[in-house]
């Protein structure tokens, strides 16, 4: 990106050859989409049947089901947007959406 911009700003008296690469993405990054969240998923671990439906239907793919653990549903809150698809799709309705902040 910077290469292209510099070339446009530079005054060239006579034609010159440039090697322009154009805008190229070189950084594999993630936005902090967890900051969007208004409603937060809360799991009732007693009622959970560990079927994995929430993990499969999560658009951000941030839900892990760890069967050995007592808190078996692990959600990465750095990226959870709080859409509530997991709560809506859960067959036993053990996920509820609670207000995180007003």
């Amino acid at each position, binding site marked *: *990106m910077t290469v292209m911009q510099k070339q446009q700003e530079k005054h060239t008296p006579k034609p010159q050859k440039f090697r322009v690469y154009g*805008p*190229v*993405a*070189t*950084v*594999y*990054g*993630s*936005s*902090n*989409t*967890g900051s*969007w969240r208004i409603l937060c998923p809360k799991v009732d671990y007693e009622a959970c049947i560990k079927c994995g439906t929430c993990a*499969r*239907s*999560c*658009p*951000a*793919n*941030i839900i892990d089901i760890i069967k050995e653990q007592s808190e078996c549903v692990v959600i*990465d809150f*750095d*990226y959870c*947007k*709080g*859409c*509530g*698809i997991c*709560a*809506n*799709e859960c067959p036993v309705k053990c996920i509820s*959406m609670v207000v995180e902040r007003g």
Partner: protein
Amino acid sequence: MYDVQHNSRGLVSHGVSACAGCGMELIMRNVLEVLGEDTIILIPPGCSALFSGFGNETALKIPGFQGNLENTAACAAGVRAALNAKGNKHTTVLAFAGDGGTVDIGIQSLSGVLERRDKVLYICYDNEAYMNTGIQASSSTPYFAGTTTTPSGKKTGRKDLMQIAIAHDIPYAATASINNLNDLKKKVQKAKDTDGPSLLHIHTPCPTGWRYEPAKTIEIARAAVQTGCWILYEYEAGKVTINYRQKELKPIEEYIGFQGRFGNLSKEQKKEIQDYVTKQYNKYIIKLEAMN
């Protein structure tokens, strides 16, 4: 190759700025889970451009290219030609475009690819309007749906992309929906293994444009299939298979009732939609059965 700042499972970054409850994000993850690393993706401007990223940042681990709205399929054909010239037969070339970039603006280049038999996997995620520019109606917008350019409801039905593709007699074409992700993955795998052009038309609920609660994305996709608004079928080497058949269609209210874009319709208009959908569905099933 990339400077990885945040790690992720799979090939797609977790923090993508797609709206909460976006159906397209779910499709992208499931498609790339099947296709794997050996894929080159072509993305037109649109909601899917969130995955090619902003500036020097990207949300995909696979190589890709963002072209213009009208030439996604043509770019894919070019990438395929370059790979063929290098003797590379294994890499999948994936074009991932929305309904506007496919049925309106990009249809001429798509038709060219289908006619030339280039081995390209074309996926159209259909959210039934130009969502990224502010919900303008496209030719895939259904009958009576309200958008910013059709505030009182669209007066015409939708363009049938599948029948256009089938008219080119391509090796593989299928419709899919996010309510059945296993079926979607199976179809992606079939399309990947096809020697020649393949097309997937995927129904993608959009909470922002259709104006419903983000939590209902998959529920609405399911309702669309069960009410007959979206028909799941595939066309494979000249043979049509209907994947899901309702014995009796559910009332249309279960699909349009949640959605704000159908919110200002009167009772008579809702009945008109019901009659229209039932008639279209029955006609379409007879047509599909007659194709075999």
